[in-house]
C-alpha cells in the first residue's frame, strides 16, 4: 500500500462523512413537501418532523419512506466510520481479520447511500403522482428543496466509490491465517528480509540463502562447528609438520653424531693424528644444528604469535562471512592461496628501525620515491624484503594488497602482502 492510497482512503472517508451529514441535516431542515388542505383551502409546507402531524395517508406513507431514508443514512455513516476504524487497524498489522471486516463493512456505506438516492428519487416520483401534495420549491424557482440533499448524497456516493476502489486492493494483501503459522511466517519474513539485504550487498547467490533460511539455526551451528573443526585440523597438521621437521633434524643430528663417532673411532684406530680436528668438526656441526634449531624455534614462535593475534579477530569475521552464505567461494580461494603459500615461502618484512646502515642508504636513495608515495596516500609502498633463500635484503615497490617479488640475487620468487 502506498502513502497515496492511504491518503485517498482517508480523504474519501472524510468527504463522505461531511457530505452525508450535510445531506442528512438538509433533509431534516428543509421543507420537503407542500400539502394543499382542501378543508381550510390553504397550502402548507412541511418538513420531515412536521409531516407526522398531518392526517393524510399519502403524506404518512411519504414520512415513513423518509424515515427509512434517514435510517439508511445513519447506517451508511456507521459503515464508513467502521471503515475508518478498519483502515486504522489495518495500519496496526495486528488485527488483519478485524480490519478486513471493518473495511468490508465500509463498502456497505456506498451500497446504502446508493439505495438512499434511488429511494428518494422513487419517493419524488411518488409524490408527483399524489393528489394535493407537491414537492416544495425554493420560492418561484423550479428547483425543489429535496434536490439539495439528493445532490449531497450523489456527491458522497462518488467518494464512497473512491473508498471502495481504494479498499478492494487491500483485501488482496490481507492474509488471514492461524496465529501460530502467522508468527512463524513473520519470523521467516524477517529473516528473509535480512538475508535479502546481505545478498544485495554482497551479491551472493540467492539460492544459497534460501537454503540457509530453511534451517537457519541448525545450519549456522553446523557451519560454526565445521569451521572450528577445520581450524583444529589445520593447527594439528601444522604441529605435526613442525614435529616431523624436528624429528628429521633429530635424525640428522643422530646420523651426524654416529658418522662423527665412527670417523673418530676409525681415526682412533688409524692413529691419533686427527684428534685435534675432532673437536672442531663436532663443534661446527653442533653449532650449525643449534643455529638452525633456534631459527626454527623463533619462526615457530612468530607464527604462533601471528596466528594467536589474528585468529581471535579473524575467526569472528570469517564465521560471519561463512554464515552469510558466500563462504564457499571464499573457502576455495583461501585453500588455493594456502596451497600457494606452502609452495612459496613467505618473504619477511623488515621494519625500518631494524635496518642496517647500508639499508638506510638505500632507503635514503629511495627517499624521493617514498615521499611521493606518501603524498599519493601511500598507494605504492616501498618495503624492504629479506630473501629467505639467499638472505639478501633488497627494496621492493609494493602495489596493492599482493605483489609478486623476485629476488634479484638468487631469483627466488615469492609474494609480499
Amino acid at each position, binding site marked *: 500500500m502506498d502513502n497515496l492510497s492511504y491518503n485517498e482512503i482517508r480523504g474519501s472517508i472524510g468527504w463522505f462523512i461531511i457530505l452525508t451529514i450535510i445531506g*442528512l441535516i438538509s433533509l431534516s431542515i428543509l421543507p420537503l413537501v407542500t400539502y394543499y388542505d382542501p378543508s381550510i383551502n390553504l397550502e402548507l409546507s*412541511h418538513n420531515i*418532523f*412536521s409531516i407526522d*402531524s398531518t392526517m393524510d395517508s399519502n403524506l404518512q406513507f411519504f414520512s415513513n419512506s423518509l424515515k427509512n431514508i434517514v435510517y439508511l443514512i445513519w447506517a451508511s455513516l456507521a459503515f464508513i*466510520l467502521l471503515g*475508518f476504524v478498519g483502515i*486504522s487497524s489495518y495500519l496496526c498489522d495486528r488485527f488483519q481479520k478485524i480490519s478486513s471486516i471493518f473495511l468490508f463493512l465500509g463498502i456497505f456505506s456506498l451500497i446504502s447511500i446508493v439505495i438512499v438516492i434511488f429511494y428518494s428519487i422513487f419517493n419524488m416520483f411518488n409524490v408527483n403522482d399524489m393528489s394535493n401534495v407537491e414537492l416544495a420549491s425554493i420560492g418561484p424557482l423550479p428547483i425543489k428543496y429535496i434536490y439539495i440533499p439528493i445532490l449531497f448524497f450523489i456527491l458522497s456516493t462518488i467518494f464512497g466509490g473512491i473508498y471502495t476502489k481504494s479498499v478492494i486492493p487491500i483485501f488482496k494483501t490481507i492474509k488471514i491465517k492461524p496465529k501460530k503459522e502467522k508468527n512463524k511466517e513473520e519470523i521467516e519474513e524477517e529473516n528473509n528480509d535480512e538475508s535479502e539485504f546481505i545478498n544485495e550487498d554482497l551479491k551472493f547467490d540467492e539460492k544459497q540463502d534460501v537454503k540457509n533460511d530453511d534451517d537457519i539455526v541448525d545450519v549456522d551451528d553446523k557451519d560454526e562447528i565445521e569451521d572450528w573443526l577445520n581450524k583444529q585440523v589445520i593447527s594439528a597438521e601444522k604441529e605435526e609438520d613442525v614435529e616431523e621437521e624436528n624429528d628429521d633434524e633429530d635424525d640428522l643430528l643422530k646420523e651426524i653424531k654416529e658418522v662423527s663417532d665412527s670417523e673418530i673411532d676409525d681415526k682412533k684406530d688409524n692413529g691419533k693424528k686427527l684428534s685435534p680436528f675432532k673437536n672442531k668438526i663436532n663443534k661446527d656441526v653442533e653449532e650449525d644444528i643449534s643455529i638452525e634449531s633456534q631459527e626454527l624455534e623463533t619462526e615457530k614462535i612468530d607464527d604462533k604469535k601471528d596466528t594467536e*593475534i589474528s585468529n581471535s579477530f*579473524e575467526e569472528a569475521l570469517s564465521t560471519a562471512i561463512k554464515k552469510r552464505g558466500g563462504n564457499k567461494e571464499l573457502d576455495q580461494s583461501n585453500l588455493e592461496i594456502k596451497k600457494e603459500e606452502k609452495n612459496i615461502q613467505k618473504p619477511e618484512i623488515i621494519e625500518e628501525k631494524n635496518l642496517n646502515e647500508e639499508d638506510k642508504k638505500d632507503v635514503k636513495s629511495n627517499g624521493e620515491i617514498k615521499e611521493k608515495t606518501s603524498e599519493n596516500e601511500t598507494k605504492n609502498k616501498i618495503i624492504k624484503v629479506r630473501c629467505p633463500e639467499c638472505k639478501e635484503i633488497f627494496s621492493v615497490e609494493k602495489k596493492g594488497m599482493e605483489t609478486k617479488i623476485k629476488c634479484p640475487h638468487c631469483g627466488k620468487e615469492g609474494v609480499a602482502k
Partner: protein
Amino acid sequence: MESKLPVDNKSDELIKQKILEESFRKANFKTENDKKNKKSEEKLKKRSTSKIGIFLIVISIVSIILMYLGPWVFIQYNADYGSDSVLIFSNTINSDINSKDIIDLLSTNYMGVSLGDFQNAPYQISIGFFALIIIGLIFFMFQVIDKFKKFPSETFIIITNLFAVISFMVGIYIIVITMKFIGSYFLFLQNIHLIDFYPIIVYIMPFLIIINGFLVSKYSYSIIKIYYNQLKSKKHSSEGKYSFFKSSISEGR
C-alpha cells in the same frame, strides 16, 4: 597492524568491512527503532488518556444541566400595549407564554415546532447525552484498567476508535434532533403567508446543544484521525527507514 594481519585477499577484506558496517548499522537501526516505537507508543497512550472520557462526561453533564435550567427560546413580538419579549424554559413553557398569538403559532404546524416539542426534545437530547456519559464512563474505566493491565497500544487504539465512533454517532444524533428547531426558521419563512404577525424567534439552547454536539463529534472524529495519522506515520517511518537502509546497503555505503 594491517600488514601483520593475514588478509587473504582484497575481496575478503572488503566483505569483512561491509559485514561490520552492516551489523553496526543494524544495531543502530534496531536500537533507534525500539526507542522510537516505545516513545510513539507512550505518546499514543498519553494522547488517548487524552481525557476523551472525562471530556464526554463533563460536556454531557453541562449540557443536561443547561438544557433543563437554561432558556430555550427568546421571542419578541408586538402586543397591543407595544413590543413584548419572553424567555421560554423547557419546564415552565406553559406558564411563560402569555401571548395568545404565540400559543396559536406554536399549536399549529406552521413552524414545524409545537409546544410539546419543547418538552419532548430535551428528553430525547438528554438520552443522547446520557449515552455519552455512559460511553465516557466506560472509556474512563477502560483507561484505569489499562494502567494496571497495560493493554497493547494497538488494542487500545482500536477500542478507543470504536468508542470514538459511537460518540461521534451520538453527537450527530443530538445535532440532527436539535435541527428541528433550526428547521422551523425555514418552515416559518415558507409558511409566512399564513402568519398574521411577525415575531422574532431566537433559539438559545438548541444552538448551544448543536455546538456541544458538534464539539463531541468533532473531538471524536479528531481522535480517530489522530490515531490514524499516528499509525500511518509510525508505519511509514519504519518502512521508510527500512527502504533507506536497504538502499544504502545495496549501494554499499
